[in-house]
């Protein structure tokens, strides 16, 4: 009936030849599909690709949301890093210490100025006579005499 030659059974080699012949006939049949069918198959492929894209976008969005939620839970990107947190903690302490030191220095300086004014007044004889009549002042002079 036809030109095809099929050689079934016995050896795997002839079976392979037989199956190859059948497969090539099936391929030929698949190539001869009418346009109505091939067009619908094409549309089905496009619909499937669109579905894959939609699924991947949804999955991507969910993964991002999960990563953000996880990092928030672990104190990740939404919180400052360790050096920043140390700096923010230590800076007020350092400022307070510096303030105490400055207040002490200023107090010492004011006391020294006051003593210097008295010494200067004594040395320049600007001390009133009545001051020498003061017993306490006399004691002061006696004790501080070089």
């Amino acid at each position: 009936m036809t030109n095809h030659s099929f050689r079934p059974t016995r050896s795997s080699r002839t079976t392979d030849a037989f199956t190859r012949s059948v497969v090539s006939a099936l391929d030929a049949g698949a190539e001869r599909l009418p346009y109505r069918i091939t067009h619908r198959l094409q549309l089905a492929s496009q619909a499937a690709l669109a579905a894959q894209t939609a699924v991947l976008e949804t999955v991507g969005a969910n993964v991002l949301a999960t990563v953000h939620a996880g990092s928030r839970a672990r104190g990740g990107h939404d919180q400052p890093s360790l050096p920043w947190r140390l700096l923010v903690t230590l800076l007020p302490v350092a400022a307070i210490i510096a303030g105490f030191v400055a207040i002490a220095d200023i107090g010492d300086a004011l006391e020294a100025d006051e003593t210097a004014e008295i010494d200067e007044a004594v040395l320049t004889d600007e001390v009133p006579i009545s001051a020498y009549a003061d017993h306490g002042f006399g004691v002061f002079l006696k004790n501080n005499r070089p």
Partner: protein
Amino acid sequence: MASRQELSDFLSSVERRAFKQAVFAVRDDDTALDLVQDAMMRLAERYGDKPAEELPMLFQRILQNRIHDHFRRGKVRNFWVTLWSALRGPPGEADDDFDPLESFEAEEGSQAAESTEDRVASEQSVRIIEEEIERLPTRQREAFLLRYWEDLDVAETAAAMGCSQGSVKTHCSRATHSLAAALRSRGFKS
């Protein structure tokens, strides 16, 4: 993970064979198209993130499941149709006019280089082979097509069919022998 291009290439390469497989099983173009479309959608939605090399086996498994589901639903449907027909009178001829040759229309001019006689002979050969493939028992046909037409290995065929590798070998062997005998009886030289 399969890229969009890889999935597109895969679907383009497999769509015609998938359609023919479905037609061999359900013998109806529109139903076969629906089944193939369902299988494509499910592959893309559920397994679109799988590596490209896993797509053939996954797709075939989905398609075979879709075809089996179709027959399961058909059994239930047929029960009610039979019951309804028995109540209404003798069955009509709606289901008796199926012509398997209708699905093998060739496009005009696609074989211009061949002589008319050769083309007719070739088309006739293809048609006869497809008819004999259709007549194979379901599991034998599935195994034969997956193993030899889809070029899956025995393990992949077994996974797609949901059976053991030994069963695949048995189905393939029986299919090959049955097909060869049937074609010989229809005038093909051995």
